[in-house]
């Protein structure tokens, strides 16, 4: 039963991704093409120089060769076809990770294939983000449970106020502040990037260095977000506590501890997970800016760089991949929900 649900959900995600990429391709077609044509011109010029050196062609022949070559490339990239067809080809290329060449940016190995440029950054973003997410959820749910147990009490009310106070605080601004304080005024932490230069060799030393660099960004990310998690958890748990089956469990003599952590938490898990992951996915955007502040060489930082250098292919490619990760995240969320809620996992009535 669940497998059917899982497969359907994944297929749905893929279809959604394709549709969204199509929309992007249409939206940004004009500017992407401008860049492509410029790149073609450059390429042709470079090749012409090579041809000129290798053979001794006459100027008119070279001109002819240039035009032929240009026409050939344009045809290769489908730029001579009607607009719908062009958009279609762009969509197809993006979906197959055929993202073109960058204009300025290079990967750490010096390549300018956009896909490679982005690919090496994906795990870096994921490390930072997932660590922050896990810590955020753990602290948030724990705090939320404690708030629900003593709902209306002083701790509950104060933490709720704090939640509201930090509601509109941009996490990247907090990052700036923390850099100012903990990297410059009191130089405890490094002010950015993923590793020290030079990076320490040896697995363990490298790992510790990574943690050292992750500390400040993760703290800044978590410090603001877990309040929201706690608030949502508290509300959901309080809602569950009012359900009949909780009273029924208590009437059956089940210990309060079991009722809270077993029946209540377990029943609240699906909505808590959903709400948490949704909120986290929403904060994904902010985390991208965040990377720029900390010079963390991930996908978010790539947006900064690409904007500054006006590297259109990289921007497009990054957007496609960011969206892909985002949609994958949404699908993952649904799959987890399905696992947690037996109404989905096992399906309908007997």
């Amino acid at each position, binding site marked *: 039963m669940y497998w059917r649900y899982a497969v359907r959900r994944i297929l749905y995600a893929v279809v959604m991704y394709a549709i969204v990429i199509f929309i992007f391709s249409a939206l940004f077609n004009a500017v992407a093409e401008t860049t492509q044509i410029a790149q073609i011109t450059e390429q042709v010029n470079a090749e012409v120089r090579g041809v000129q050196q290798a053979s001794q062609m006459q100027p008119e022949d070279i001109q002819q060769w240039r035009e032929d070559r240009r026409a050939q490339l344009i045809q290769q990239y489908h730029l001579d076809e009607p607009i719908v067809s062009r958009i279609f080809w762009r969509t197809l290329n993006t979906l197959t990770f055929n993202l073109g060449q960058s204009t300025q940016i290079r990967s750490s190995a010096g390549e300018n294939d956009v896909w490679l440029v982005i690919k090496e950054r994906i795990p870096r973003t994921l490390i930072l983000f997932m660590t922050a997410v896990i810590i955020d959820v753990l602290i948030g749910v724990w705090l939320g449970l404690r708030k629900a147990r003593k709902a209306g009490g002083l701790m509950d009310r104060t933490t709720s106020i704090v*939640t*509201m106070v930090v509601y509109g605080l*941009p996490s990247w601004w907090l990052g700036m*502040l923390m850099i*100012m304080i903990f990297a410059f005024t009191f130089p405890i932490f490094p002010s950015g990037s993923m590793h020290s230069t030079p990076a320490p060799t040896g697995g363990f030393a490298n790992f510790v260095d990574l943690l050292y660099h992750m500390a400040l960004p993760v703290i800044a990310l978590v410090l603001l977000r877990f309040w929201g998690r706690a608030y949502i958890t508290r509300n959901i748990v309080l809602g569950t506590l009012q359900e009949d089956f909780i009273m029924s469990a208590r009437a059956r003599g089940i210990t309060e501890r079991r009722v809270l952590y077993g029946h209540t938490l377990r029943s609240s898990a699906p909505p808590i997970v959903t709400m948490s992951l949704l909120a986290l996915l929403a904060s994904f955007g902010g985390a*991208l800016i965040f990377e720029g502040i900390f010079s963390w060489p991930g996908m978010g930082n790539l*947006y900064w760089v690409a*904007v*500054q250098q006006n590297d259109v292919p990289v921007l497009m490619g990054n957007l496609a991949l960011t969206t892909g990760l985002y949609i994958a995240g*949404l699908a993952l969320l649904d799959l987890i929900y399905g696992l947690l809620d037996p109404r989905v996992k096992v399906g309908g009535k007997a």
Partner: protein
Amino acid sequence: MKRKETSQLRAFWNEFRRVRFGIVGLVLFAVFVLIVAFEPLLMPYRDANERWRDMTYWLDSPRNALPVWVNWFSAKDYAVAEKLEATSVTESQVGTLRMMTMEFDYDFDYERPPTDFQLVMTLTGNASLQMEVIRPDGESLNYQRSTSSSGTRELRISIAQNLQDKVFRLASPFADPDVIASENPETIDAVATMFAVAGPSMLRNTSPLQGTYTCRLTVALTGEDSQLDSAHVIIAGGVAGWMGTDASKRDIWSGLIAGTKWALLIGLLTSFVSVAVGVVYGVVAGYFGGWIDSAMNRVFEIFLSMPLLPILIVMSAVFKPSIWTMIIMMCLFFWVGPVKTVRSMALQIKENTYIEAAKALGASHRRIVFKHLLPQLVPYAFATMALSVPSAIVYEASISLIGLGDATVVTWGQILQDAYASGAVLQGTWWWVVPPGIAIALMGMTFAFIGFAMDTILNPKLRTR
């Protein structure tokens, strides 16, 4: 039916009044509105809005000055930025020359010297002038120059920029010879030396010479139309303004005040439009059901699959929008927020018998939607609007921070972008980085208070339905 709706809204208001932090939120909101209303009165630099990026507007301010209230807390007071008018003006005629002498008195009783001392004047025609700055200990600086031109122009003589040689020469008899040997006019802090006690430490590790400094300007004008229109002394202090100044000499406090209206505008407009669209969308989908609902759901799901900020970034990079276009772009994505909840609420309400009754009585769809469904959704809509405002403001700030914002308007995000791009984080210019962020946070907090207060009232009711 109308009475039912208004009494429902009034009951809602009564409950809202009881939630303390909701009232705090409303008060803060009122404060922000007042700030926007009284903006011209609150900004020391009235034209900050239009001339934020115009360097000539800010020439008289110091660069990177701390806020004035820093002096309340520090042991060593910073010199306050000032603009001095002449304490005495005398005119005389010597043959065909007209002579004007203006004297300015500056009381320096701080522990830290200003960053610059400037004499600024507007001249028309031909003139030759002499500037003297006399220290409390009698030493003085002398500077002469002539200028001829037919038009009116501004002349700015700055100790830091133009008079370093003179200051160096002034200090030479007193300062430590070793220091003199290793320094030159370019490397010394001319102003600090000018305001330092004459002695061995005059060039390095200066101690302040407190007292009255007099600046005398003597102008000899030739020609009929030559005029000295005005002159002042500008003290570029270490502290200036309520929030200090930035690296481009702009008064940060004025910037913050100017940004308030944009924050309110962006936040309220975006959330109002997007929530309104979202609510109507959800109601229509839920109420009509069937294929309309399915189709609308598909469209909705496509929007849900798009991560907002990356799209905003790329769209801004490609289309380079103005602030208004940015608001429209944000609305294009924000509307999805309330749809799911509103749709299920509409589905629930639809099942109520009074809806059936209304239909049986012949009420049109439009009437049912507008008179029966929408009024019940108003409290929820307000709560959602309130909670969307901070997001909109932060999104605009994020786009501005990355450099893609509308540079013609002064928003808090723009101020932060200038700060970040100028390296304020690295240099520790905290008064440039912290206040705009606090402003954003305060406004976010205001709407969070209001929205959460509404939320706490709505939820028990939603459950009993």
